[in-house]
C-alpha cells in the first residue's frame, strides 16, 4: 500500500450540519488528483477537514491517516509539520507579517533562517513573484495570481508532501496559472497534489492521474482526465 492520505468513513459537520457524508478514499503517493463538483458539494470542507480546521467536527467513525498514522485528532500545526499543506482559496493578508517571518517561525529548529531567506529569494525569481511582495506584509496588495504563487512558494519552502490547492484557478490569470502548473509538473517526485477546481483549464497544463467528482458530500465518481473533459462538455448533471 502506497497511501499518502487515507480517509475512512469521513463525515464532517460544521455547526451541526453534516457536509461530508462518509467519504472513503486513499490518495496515493506521487500522484496528481483533481477534485471537481458543483458549488456546495463539500470540496472545500474536505480540504479544511484534512488540514484540521478547528470549527469542523468529525463523526466518531471518521478517520484520517497520514501514511500509516492516524491524524484525526491532531491540531492543524501538527498535521502541517507532517507534510500536509493547504493552499487557501482566498489567502488572508497578514498585517505586519512577511512571508519570511512566517516561514522562519514555521521552520524554526528545522531550517536555518538564512537558508529560508535564500530559498524564498530563489523561488520568488523562479515563480516570477515581484520583490516588493516578498518584503511587504504577506498577501497585502497582491493580485489573485500573486497570492496563489505565494501559497505555492510556502508549500515548497515547507517541503510539503501532500498539497491541497483549493480553487487554484479562481481569480488567477493565465500566466500565473502556467507558472504554477509548470512547477507542479516538474516536481512530482515525493509530492501528492490535490487540485480542487471548477474548470479543467489547469488540467490542460497538469495532467491529473485521477479525477474525483464530489456531490452532496460524497465522492460519486472517479475517473481519469477524460472525466474532466466530459464534465466540461456536459456538466455535472450527465453523471
Amino acid at each position: 500500500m502506497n497511501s499518502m492520505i487515507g480517509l475512512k468513513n469521513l463525515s464532517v459537520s460544521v455547526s451541526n450540519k453534516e457536509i461530508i457524508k462518509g467519504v472513503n478514499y486513499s490518495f496515493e503517493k506521487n500522484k496528481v488528483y483533481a477534485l471537481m463538483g458543483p458549488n456546495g458539494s463539500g470540496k472545500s470542507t474536505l480540504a479544511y477537514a484534512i488540514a484540521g480546521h478547528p470549527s469542523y467536527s468529525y463523526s466518531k467513525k471518521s478517520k484520517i491517516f497520514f501514511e500509516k498514522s492516524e491524524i484525526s485528532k491532531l491540531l492543524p500545526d501538527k498535521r502541517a509539520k507532517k507534510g500536509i499543506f493547504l493552499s487557501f482559496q482566498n489567502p488572508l493578508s497578514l498585517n505586519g507579517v512577511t512571508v519570511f517571518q512566517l516561514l522562519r517561525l514555521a521552520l524554526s529548529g528545522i531550517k536555518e533562517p538564512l537558508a529560508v531567506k535564500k530559498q524564498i529569494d530563489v523561488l520568488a525569481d523562479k515563480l516570477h513573484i515581484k520583490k516588493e511582495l516578498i518584503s511587504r506584509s504577506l498577501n497585502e496588495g497582491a493580485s489573485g495570481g500573486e497570492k496563489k504563487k505565494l501559497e505555492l512558494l510556502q508549500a515548497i519552502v515547507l517541503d510539503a508532501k501532500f498539497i491541497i490547492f483549493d480553487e487554484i484557478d479562481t481569480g488567477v490569470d493565465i500566466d500565473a496559472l502556467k507558472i504554477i502548473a509548470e512547477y507542479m509538473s516538474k516536481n512530482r517526485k515525493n509530492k501528492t497534489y490535490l487540485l480542487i477546481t471548477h474548470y479543467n483549464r489547469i488540467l490542460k497544463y497538469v495532467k491529473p492521474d485521477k479525477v474525483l467528482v464530489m456531490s452532496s458530500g460524497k465522492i460519486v465518481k472517479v475517473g481519469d482526465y477524460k472525466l474532466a473533459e466530459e464534465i466540461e462538455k456536459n456538466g455535472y448533471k450527465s453523471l
Partner: protein
Amino acid sequence: MVKQNDLNFDYKFGFSKPEKSVFRVKKGINEEIVSQISKIKKEPLWMKEFRLRSYRFFKKTKMPEWGADLSKIDFENIFYYIRATDKAMNSWEDLPSEIKDTYDRIGVPEAEKNFLAGVSAQYESEVVYESIQKELTKQGVIFCDMDTGLKKYPEIVKKYFGTIISPYDNKFAALNSSVWSGGSFVYVPRGVKVALPLQAYFRINARNFGQFERTLIIAEPESFVHYIEGCTAPIYTTSSLHSAVVEIIVKPGARVRYTTVQNWSKNVFNLVTKRARVEKNAVMEWVDCNIGSGVTMKYPSCFLVGDGAKGEVLSIAYAGSAQHQDAGAKMIHMAPNTTSRIVSKSISGHGGRTSYRGLVQVLPGASNSKVYVSCDALILDEESRSDTYPSMKINENEVDIQHEATVEKLGEEKLFYLQSRGISKSEAEGLLVNGFIEPVVKEIPLEYSIELNRLINLEMAGSVG
C-alpha cells in the same frame, strides 16, 4: 500588613534580593517625612520648600476619577524614601555583590559593553551605578542622576525644575514633586548631537516601596539626544506605586527622542506624567511601550509652543489578565505651522483592558497646523476589552486633521492560516500581535524591540500569570 516571607517568585523577572538598605524613612507620608527626605539629601532650601508646597497640594487634591481604578492605592502603606547604598558608585566593581547580581540578571553590563554611551542604573530610590563615557563629558553633555544634578548644577536645575510640569498639575505630579528621588538629569549643549542613546535601567526592590523618580532633559538649540528607559521589577505581595515625572525642554531646532519599555510587575500602579515643551522648529518624539504593571495611566504630552514645532507619540500597550493600560497622548498646538502625530496600538487579551485616551488641542493662532491621529486596537478574546476616548478641541480654522481608528479581533481564520503552516496557535497569536505593533516597534532600537517581541510572545504563550 506585610509579612516577611511572602515574596512571590513566579514573576519571570521576579527575583528579589535581600533588602540591605542603609536608611529608610518611616512608612506613610506627612510634612515631617517630606522635610526629612530633603534633609537627608542635604538639599537647598528652595527644594525643601518646593517639596512642602507640592505635598500640601497633593494632600488636598482628590484622586482622579476619570480613568483607571486607583482605589487600591494606600498612601499610608508605602515607603517614600529608601537609600540602598551610601553614595553613587562609578564603576561596576565597586557595587555591592547583591545589587550587581540583580543587574547581571537584567543584563546591564552586557548592554553596556555592546553599545551604551552611559549607564545610570537605579536601584531602589537612588542611583548607585553610573558610568559616563569620556566622549559625553568632552562634548559638554551632562548625564547623571537627578540628585547629583541638583548638587552639581543647581542653577540649571533651579531654572527648569517644575516649569514644564507644575506640582499643581495633578495629584501624582504633586506626590512626585514632594518625595522625588533619583531619575536622570540630562543637559545637551547647543549643537551637540549625542550619537548613542543614553540609557537608564530602573528597578524597585523593597516591598511596599514606591518609586518616584524625576527626570529633566534640556536640549539646547540644534542639539539631539535619544534617551531610553526600560524597566523590569520583582513582584511584591501588596500594591506598589510608581509615580514619575519627566520634563523635557526642546529648544529651537533641537530634537529629543524618549523611548520607554515599561514592564513593571502586575501589582504596580504606574502613574506617570511626561511632558515636553517644543520650541521653534524643534522635534519631540515619545516612543512609549507599556507591557507590564497592573494599572498604567500615562499620556506623554507635547506643548508645541514655537512656530514649526513637531510632536510625535508612538505607543504600544498590552493588557493581559488583571491589567488595565489607560494610555494615550496629548498634543497642544500653540503656534502656527505645528505638526503632531499620534500612533497608538493597543492589545488586550486574557481579560485585560486597554483604553486609548487622547487630547489634541489647536489654540487660536496656531494656523496651518497639521494633526494626525491613528489608534488601532486588537482584541484577542471575548473576555478582553478596549475603549477609545479621543478628544479634539480645535479653535482654529486653517488646520489639517486626520483621524483614523480601527478595532480588530484576532480572527480564527488568520490563526488557522498560520497553523496550517505548522505554527502553533500561541506562536501564531504572537506573530500576528507582533505584526500589528510592527509600525511602532520598528522605531525602537533593535535590542529593545527584540526584548519587546520576546515579552509579547511570553505573554501570548500564557507563561506569565
